[in-house]
Structures are given as C-alpha cells and as structure tokens.
C-alpha cells in the first residue's frame, strides 16, 4: 500500500556514499525535500 498524504513515513535507513547507514530522523529540518533520482546520469 503506497504511502498517502498526511501519513507519517517510517524512519527509513539509507546509505551515505562512504557506506555508513543513516536514518531520515538524523536530518533535523523543519521540512525535508526528498528527491528520488532515476539512474545516475
């Protein structure tokens, strides 16, 4: 089921370029713009 407007997104784990894991919650901003890329290029 796709996430809907108004719902809270889970604290996703992503990976930094150097290979370390990072959670969304580690970016303390008033709002977070998430840009999902297609393939790099």
């Amino acid at each position, binding site marked *: 089921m796709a*996430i809907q407007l108004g719902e809270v997104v889970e604290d996703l784990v992503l990976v930094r370029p150097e290979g370390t894991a990072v959670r969304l919650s580690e970016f303390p901003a008033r709002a977070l*713009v998430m840009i*999902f*890329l297609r393939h790099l290029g």
Partner: protein
Amino acid sequence: VQTIYPQIRELGGDVLAISFSPPARVAAYIQRYPLPFPVLSDPDQHAYRTFALEKTSWWTMLRPTSILRYLKLMVRGWLPWSPAKDDDLLQLGGDFILDEHRRLVFAYRSSEPTDRPVAKILVNVMRSIEEKKLEQEETEKTE
C-alpha cells in the same frame, strides 16, 4: 533543485537526493558532479517502494517526446552519464516533502523519465509549511 536550494535552506528545510545506485557509484558521481545537498543510496530500493515509485516501459523511454525532452536538457548543459550494467533504467523518480514529524505533505511521482515538478512548487510547499508552523507557534503563545 540546486537553484532553489538556498531558498529551501532559508525556510528551514533541507534536501536529500536518493539514488538506487550502490554507495560507491554515488560517491564517484558526486565527486564528478558535486551537489550542495546529501546524496544517499537506497540499494535495495526499499524507499522507492515505500513511496510507490513506478517503473516506465522501454516504449515510453524511446518515445519521440521523451527523446526531445532529453535533447532539451542536453542543450541546457546536462550530459548523460553512461548507466552501470545493473542499473534499473526503467525505475522512475519522484519528489516528496515531509514535515518535521516526517508526515508526507507533498508527493509527485514521475509518470515518465523526464517528468518532474516545477521547482517553484517545492518552494511554495516549503513556504506554506513554514507559515503554518509560525501560525501554530503564535497560537501556542497566546493560549
């Protein structure tokens, strides 16, 4: 987005770019094309699935309108980077905005490879979040 990044920062926001490419490939990419905001990797595409980002078809990729849009991007200075062997060329992107509680307040899922929201829309959403936050703080003060 790079052009509106300073405005987003002024509004108290931040930007994360997310790629499904492995971290080493992301590192090589940002070394060649530095970006002012973090670029993170989602190699198992869990985040892509969480946001229900779709896949396109080869037919859509090779449509004259798609090719024309790529040509326009190239005229504006964008240069294609040859994809890696295991890149999922059909995976589409998207743009989302979360508020400070990680609540989804804006969602734009690309319907074809070059489909992206106008950057100004992202700034407007950020501005409305900031305004709501200020209103809320004012209300709390007066109560």
